[in-house]
């Protein structure tokens, strides 16, 4: 059955917030300094709140009686519509581990991804706050205030690490090379007339802001790639199943469990 275009539009945004939040929350208790631990956890929490509002509304538009929890925890991998960028592990294979073992966490990669997504969300929410749909406009107006802090915070780190020591710059360059192809998907989703813009409408502004940030960070932009989007149509990377196994574990083990 074809999904309603509005529901699909909401799920692409909601799932991107949700999965981004899930990855960020893996940093809780592991960030390089306490203040950053608080920051990453707070950003994760904001994104989770945004995902909750968007998923709730998506469930209402879908009209199948699914609430935020059912959408977040009981769908199959192919039904998630998030961009692949946010499901990538916090340390890519070619970037450094935090040295502490475990899942591997690269602060350079996390910082760059946070900045890229925050700039994108800010541009998207700016447009969505004037959506013809009052509910979506309300969610966007509120979320916009939050992502401005995320953008500011992550951008500062990108500059500090990019224009930092030889070691920090090398790690930022390595992380940028890994992430760059995945940024294409930030502009891939179609718009819905009177509801939300095509993501391609954000591309020029995003690229301009990103170029400014890279210049400030003294990081060179990688060459553009032809990476094809997939996540927004439910075709995910090999990392998604593992992420969902962790995220969905409780609801799968104890169906319908509540606090």
């Amino acid at each position, binding site marked *: 059955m074809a999904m309603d275009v509005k529901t699909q539009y909401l799920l692409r945004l909601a799932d991107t917030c949700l999965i981004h939040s899930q990855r960020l929350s893996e940093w809780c208790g592991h960030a390089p300094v306490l203040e950053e631990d*608080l*920051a990453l956890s707070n950003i994760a929490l*904001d994104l989770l709140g945004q995902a909750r509002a968007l998923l709730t509304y998506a469930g209402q538009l879908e009209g199948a009686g699914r609430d935020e929890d059912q959408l977040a925890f009981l769908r199959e991998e192919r039904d998630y519509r998030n961009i692949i960028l946010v499901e990538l592990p916090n340390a890519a294979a070619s970037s450094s581990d935090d040295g502490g073992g475990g899942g591997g966490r690269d602060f350079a990669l996390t910082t760059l991804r946070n900045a890229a997504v925050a700039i994108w969300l800010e541009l998207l929410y700016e447009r969505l706050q004037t959506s013809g749909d009052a509910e979506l406009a309300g969610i966007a107006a509120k979320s916009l205030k939050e992502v401005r*802090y995320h953008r*500011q915070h992550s951008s500062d780190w990108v500059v500090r690490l990019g224009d930092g020591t030889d070691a920090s710059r090398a790690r930022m360059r390595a992380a940028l090379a890994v992430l760059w192809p995945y940024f294409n998907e930030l502009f891939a989703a179609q718009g819905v007339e009177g509801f939300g813009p095509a993501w391609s409408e954000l591309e020029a502004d995003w690229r301009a802001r990103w170029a400014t940030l890279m210049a400030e960070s003294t990081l060179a932009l990688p060459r553009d790639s032809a990476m094809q989007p997939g996540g927004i149509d439910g075709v995910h990377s090999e990392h998604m199943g593992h992420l969902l196994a962790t995220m969905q574990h409780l609801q799968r083990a104890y169906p319908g469990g509540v606090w």
Partner: protein
Amino acid sequence: MDLVAARERLSQVPDPEIPAVTLMDLGIVRDLRATDAGLEVVLTPTYSGCPATELIADDVRAALAGFGAVTITLQRVPAWSTDWISAAGRVKLQHYGIVPPQCRAEQSIRVVPRLRCPRCDSGATQQLSRFGSTACKSTWRCIDCGEPFEYFKPF
């Protein structure tokens, strides 16, 4: 149904995370009205992910027990703003050791404000993190007295 008494009771409900101020001080309570189905309290959540949202609704219900049926309505529009914190609330925050927002929400968040330490009033302070123990605050320290303190971010 006594709306005045209910409002008085409601005005005493503290914020669960910053108990020095009330929900009304913070501007979270947007309306209290009588309907055919009983009292309706309109609440506006602060941050999307604020974990206290459900607890706040529970606290309001508990405070108004005895006033009949109570309906809680969560209203997202217009979005909550620190501009809604009352003058009394700002004073209470300051006394509690949390510096209240120093500018209106629309003003640029690009500029890091110059804050005075809420304990020793020194102007030699430093932001440690834009984020803090709750979503609404950032973390600072006073260079003179050495104490950490929090700042309620303009939002």
